[in-house]
């Protein structure tokens, strides 16, 4: 009996091959029994690890495992994927197909010979639902009970699955056209008046979109001895680091490293950058700022202070205003840094003068 393990190719074959290593070039296959054994071993190993760390084996979570492994096997390797890991075999061994044909060689699924059986069966199912809904609509129209219910536009809280997620779901490779076709069919289905079952079917392919501003943690206000509110913020830009303390009541004075801002930043552009967060919130003469900055040049120091001040101001304002500041680009750290010089070129991008001979 031949080994009937039609399983997707999992690992890349090694680049250097010798004649003796022909066996290694074969597709590595993981049987179901192998995976089960790995899962059992993982669970036993998890309990052993919990005992070793002196914790309760029943309530030992994945984060605890990660912490224990980093403690027991400290690694200084830069590549995170090369460090020792201990995860559930489901996450390590990629998902594979079970055997898709029986003893006689006949495939189980009726769409096996299309090559992408899960994808086509999904399309088939979705289209069947579309036809079913349209048939129901026709019946209602024939009876005269049909009412044109306007479909409420879905507010932005969810998005369609992306191609990679769909591939992972179906355990099959898809092309861009396949994916586009599928999304178009789902949109067509969602545009029609659907039942609960159809809504649930469409809901399986939608993911929630996070609202970005929720990711920011707003520090609460602090109060000093006199009872005046103040708040601190940190900012970075290129190699400049800044820390700003914004006081609740003031006259618009800004002090940097003990020096007045007019003396520290003789250039107008830098002072405009310092004023930007205050001007945006219409709070120009109402706050006092004391800040320290180090590193970088004049422009990056100004940018770092701007970010620190904007972050500190978040404690004084409403959530809506925080969102406005974020959309104006005041709360994002600028990721642009100096690009390194490459060998064979004069600078980061500039090449040497090209000479024909």
């Amino acid at each position, binding site marked *: 009996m031949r080994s009937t393990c039609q399983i997707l190719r999992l690992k890349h074959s090694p680049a250097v091959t010798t004649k003796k290593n022909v066996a290694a070039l074969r597709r590595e296959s993981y049987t179901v029994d192998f995976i089960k054994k790995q899962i059992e071993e993982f669970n036993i190993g998890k309990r052993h690890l919990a005992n070793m760390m002196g914790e309760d084996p029943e309530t030992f979570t994945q984060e605890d495992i990660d912490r224990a492994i980093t403690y027991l096997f400290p690694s200084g390797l830069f590549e995170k994927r090369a460090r020792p890991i201990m995860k559930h075999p489901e996450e390590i061994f990629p998902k594979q197909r079970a055997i898709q044909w029986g003893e006689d060689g006949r495939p189980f699924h009726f769409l096996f010979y299309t090559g992408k059986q899960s994808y086509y069966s999904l399309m088939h199912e979705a289209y069947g639902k579309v036809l079913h809904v349209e048939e129901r609509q026709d019946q209602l129209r024939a009876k005269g009970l049909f009412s044109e219910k306007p479909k409420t536009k879905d507010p*932005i809280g969810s998005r369609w699955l992306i191609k990679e997620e769909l591939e992972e779901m179906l355990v099959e490779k898809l092309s861009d056209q396949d994916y586009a076709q599928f999304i178009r069919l789902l949109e067509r289905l969602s545009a029609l008046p659907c039942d609960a079952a159809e809504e649930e079917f469409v809901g399986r392919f939608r993911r929630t979109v996070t609202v970005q501003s929720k990711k920011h943690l707003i520090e609460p206000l602090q109060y000093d001895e006199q009872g005046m509110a103040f708040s601190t913020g940190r900012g970075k830009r290129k190699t400049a680091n800044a820390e700003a303390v914004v006081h609740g009541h003031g006259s618009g004075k800004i002090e940097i490293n003990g020096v007045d801002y007019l003396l520290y930043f003789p250039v107008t552009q830098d002072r405009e950058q310092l004023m930007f967060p205050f001007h945006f919130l219409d709070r120009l003469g109402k706050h006092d700022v004391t800040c320290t900055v180090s590193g970088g040049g004049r422009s990056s120091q100004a940018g770092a202070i701007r970010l620190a001040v904007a972050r500190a101001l978040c404690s004084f304002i409403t959530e809506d205003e925080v969102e406005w500041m974020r*959309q104006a680009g005041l709360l994002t750290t600028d990721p642009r*840094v100096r690009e390194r010089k*490459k060998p064979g070129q004069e600078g980061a991008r500039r090449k*040497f003068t090209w000479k024909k001979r």
Partner: protein
Amino acid sequence: MAAPTVKVALGWSGLGLGVRRAALRLPGLVQVRWSRYGPEYQDPQTDKEYYRKPLAQLTEEETYERELRKTQVIKAAPATKTCSVFEDPVISKFTNMMMKGGNKILARSLMTQTLEAVKRKQFEKYHAASAEEQATIERNPYTIFHQALKNCEPVIGLVPILKGGHFYQEWSGWESRAAHV
């Protein structure tokens, strides 16, 4: 010497990333023109009035756009942009083009000196002129600059015209020439 295809490992400093789409990347090829921001990052909107507009006055498209922007990651505002009313994008662009060797201080000071000189000249003319002429003299240097830029734009240009199955490059725009002069 052929530039090696350098693949730069991008390390983000404290940024929340969206899903990094590899839509424009062909396998086996490394992009040379890249940006520190991922493709999902949107440009910031620094105009104060855009945010101060009350919700009741917004159209459906604008409310949809607002909701959409709440879910998008935004780039940091550049150092040259502020929400100031005195900022003019045309003047900023012109200053950047005047700049040599990254000397923005010099370029900007030259620009402000020029605008001030224009304003002074116009005011001298204004004070020396009679009441009827005073109404025609433009004193705002920014409007003068914009008008000067518009005057410098080409009036006639080459246009491909199909004649007898072939495309010939012919001049067009003659009609507006007389009005312009």
